């Protein structure tokens, strides 16, 4: 018989740490326990200290540390002298949401810059054209027929879509019996035709959808809850967030980018294996948001130059751990 007898720390924080190790994850650390006289429970707040190692293909790497404090809590109620019960604790899925939201807050400006940089291209990407299909239908019909009877777009599948086009100034006549093109849409059409950037009505529709996706991204994602096309923005954002921290366009492997992309939101776990992620990257290369050189993924200098100006804001919750 092997019996190993050990002595453990005898604090509430130590028990909360045990809870963390079993159930949450090792990037979560407990703060000091504090008694809440109103709830009559001890509370141990949880922080997330997330190392972000940025590894270049040439082997060089730097590590940064995201510090997201107070993202959860473990509550302990006293059940007798020195006897406590964990009565409530932030769930793992809730912690994921909290950390992802904090990361999103931190990178809002970078996201905004990427949305602008991709404006001309978003409408050409496959997830955008699949999930924002009603926008193409409306724009194409308006361009071909001159106007579209409102009854067509009163059907459930068009709910909200025409409003986006009206609010962005591409269509007019939402309260009347038909929708028609505005000067903005007509001028866009003329410009594309003249500059040979597009020669068909569908080219114009792609351009309009790109502009709507760029300007109304938050509505599409958070209110209309259309998530698949946000993968393009997330993957691009993950690359440039690292590049900004590193301070230069870094060559990284696709595997590395995929790994970090998955961290941004668990929804992607359902959608992307590294097999399908390659196509997503290729689309971003086609959209001139990323570059691919042999096996390396690189940033586009023009995009990098713009996002690099946002470094100061990003670094409010990020410190460099090692070089």
């Amino acid at each position, binding site marked *: *018989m*092997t019996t*190993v*007898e*050990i*002595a*453990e*720390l*005898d*604090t*509430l*924080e*130590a*028990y909360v*740490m*045990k*809870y*963390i*190790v*079993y*159930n*949450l*994850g*090792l*990037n979560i*650390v*407990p703060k000091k326990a504090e008694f809440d006289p109103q709830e009559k429970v001890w509370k141990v707040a949880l922080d*997330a*200290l*997330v*190392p972000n190692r940025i590894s270049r293909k040439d082997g060089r*790497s730097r*590590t940064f*540390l*995201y510090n*997201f404090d107070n993202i959860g809590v473990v509550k302990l109620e006293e059940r007798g002298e*020195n*006897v*406590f*019960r*964990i009565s409530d604790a932030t769930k*793992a*899925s809730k*912690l*994921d949401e909290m*950390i*992802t939201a904090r*990361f999103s807050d931190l990178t809002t400006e970078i996201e905004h810059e990427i949305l602008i940089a991709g404006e001309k291209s978003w409408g050409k990407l496959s997830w955008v054209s699949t999930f924002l299909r009603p926008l193409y239908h409306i724009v194409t019909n308006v361009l071909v027929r001159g106007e579209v009877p409102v009854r067509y777009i009163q059907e459930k599948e068009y709910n909200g879509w025409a409003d986006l086009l009206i609010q962005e100034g591409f269509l007019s006549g939402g309260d009347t019996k038909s929708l028609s093109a505005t000067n903005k849409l007509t001028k866009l059409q003329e410009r594309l035709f003249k500059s040979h950037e597009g020669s068909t009505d569908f080219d114009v529709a792609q351009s309009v959808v790109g502009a709507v996706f760029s300007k109304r991204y938050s509505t599409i994602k958070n209110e209309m809850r259309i998530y698949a096309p946000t993968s393009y923005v997330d993957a691009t954002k993950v690359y440039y967030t690292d590049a900004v921290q590193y301070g230069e366009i870094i060559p990284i492997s696709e595997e590395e980018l995929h*790994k970090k992309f*998955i*961290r941004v939101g*668990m929804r992607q*776990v*359902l*959608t*992307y*294996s590294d097999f399908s992620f390659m196509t997503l990257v290729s689309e971003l290369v086609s959209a001139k948001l990323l570059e691919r050189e042999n096996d390396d993924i690189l940033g586009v200098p023009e995009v990098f130059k713009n996002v690099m100006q946002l470094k100061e804001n990003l670094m409010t919750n990020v*410190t460099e*751990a*090692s070089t």
Partner: protein
Amino acid sequence: MSQVKSLPFIWDRHFVKGESGDCVPSCVSMAALYWKDRMPELPLPSDPEEWKRFVKRTSDVSYRGTSLRRLMRNMPTTPEEPALNALSSESQPTSVQLSDYPVEQEEPPTLEPIEGHGLVMDPKQLKDSSELDTFLSSDPPIPAILVLDIGLAQYNKKWGSHAVLLHSVDAKTQRKIYLIDPMLESLREPFTMDLRRFEIGWAPQLNTAILIYPKAPDIRITSSKRDYVKLTVFMEEPGAN
């Protein structure tokens, strides 16, 4: 180091490399391979490639890092043993099966050691570093994964948590600790740290040591109720399921 007890770790057979975010699954893999060598009857693969795949699919898929629950759920096993996370084709959408990353299930939280595939994962928050030698002095020695902030330990600068496998500790003469770091493959030997500096990096992680040992009637880990121990913390009502 001659009189210091150490983990009989064989680099060519037990070492599993980790990369960014992979340190805990790598350490678990090393501990599992160590036990598989000693107890071939354990339903664990001995092929290092299986363990590399385990490391890949359990590395940080979320910012909060890896939990023991996730590790045990994804632990590889011998073909005749069903994996704990085996996904039935009827119960899961196709996209999940295509993914390398199993969906995180929300399960009732626990404070009890996690068992599966013949192994137990048992995290302890040790009183201090003098407890570490206990695992190495037992027969057989028990692998302990130590969680520390290695940046804080070495440079007084926070780097976040990192997991290493305890190789040996010389608390009396040299005051050194010897650690197997999954990120330092090319070293091919334990790296040495001053014990005092180790303690500085270990403290923010509440002196966490994750013990990995076979579920066997002749191995027992007890947290002693020595004189200073007063607290009892539990999750469920006593007697509840």
